[in-house]
């Protein structure tokens, strides 16, 4: 009988320990984790000409408020004194019937 009690108590504590570890060690899902990538996708969908016209930096900052920097045409535009946690890369292939690919790299704050 004592053995059964000890066994059941052990089961309860094992379950507790497992749930406790899971809830503290595993990172919680962040609902906005994809927001920056989506914002850049929206910029790409709505404008073929954004990188070929002046004002790309302001358009990127408007679309991605968490942007830390923009790398474009070999120049880095720093938006904030923050270390970028994630780098999002996109390529604009061209505009108005002209194939002229350019890379746009956006660093996003943690």
């Amino acid at each position, binding site marked *: 009988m004592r053995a059964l009690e000890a066994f059941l108590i052990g089961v309860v504590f094992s379950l507790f320990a497992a749930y406790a570890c899971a809830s503290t060690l595993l990172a919680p899902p962040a609902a906005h984790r*994809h927001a920056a990538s989506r914002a850049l996708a929206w910029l790409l969908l709505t404008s*073929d000409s954004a990188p070929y016209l002046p004002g790309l930096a302001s358009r990127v900052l408007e679309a991605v408020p968490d942007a830390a920097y923009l790398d474009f045409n070999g120049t880095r535009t720093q938006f904030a004194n923050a270390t970028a946690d994630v780098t999002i890369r996109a390529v604009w292939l061209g505009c108005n019937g002209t194939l002229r690919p350019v890379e746009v790299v956006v660093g996003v704050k943690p």
Partner: protein
Amino acid sequence: MLSPSLGRGGQFLLLAAVILAISLLLALQSLRVPRPRVAAYYGELQSAELVHAARLYWSNPALEMDRVLAALYEYNESLNLVLPPASYALGSSLHPGDSGYGYYRTEYNVSVVFHAYWEWELVGTYSKRIAGVETRLNNYSLYYYHSYSAPQWGSIVLYPGIWDPAGVADIRYLGEGRWYVGAPAGAPYPLEDEFGITIYVGG
């Protein structure tokens, strides 16, 4: 009675252990602080790249879709875009006349679709002096939109701006993709949207 084989003390001890465990778990749950993080994610951006490639192709079909996609996949490695391997089907149609419609369509095998559609209807005629010549213009009611479909966002509809590169047509925007276009009669008249895609009205 939890179990006849457990003594009363054992049953209380077990019940206490269960209550303690549940209480601690609930307390732990309420103390957890959300830690939002930005992380690399592959989805919308990749589908947007495919839509962008399709739209660029239709702005100048002489570019050839294979060449446009090859340029995109060239960056797939260097930029770590993680684009899925995609094949495509192209479709286009133009039904000219006093009323008619046309479309350009690119459908990828990864459920990403670019679709540009327009339809028009003759609503009247008028005359206008162009380069010193009295010219008869047809007044059309035009509806024009782009639809971008992808598994990540469903379907997005854009109403691109249009203009006449020749500077002859009279164009007035009514909103929600609807336009009035006064264009020379006789043949399908080309207009261009803000992405460089040519559409035709009339005929």
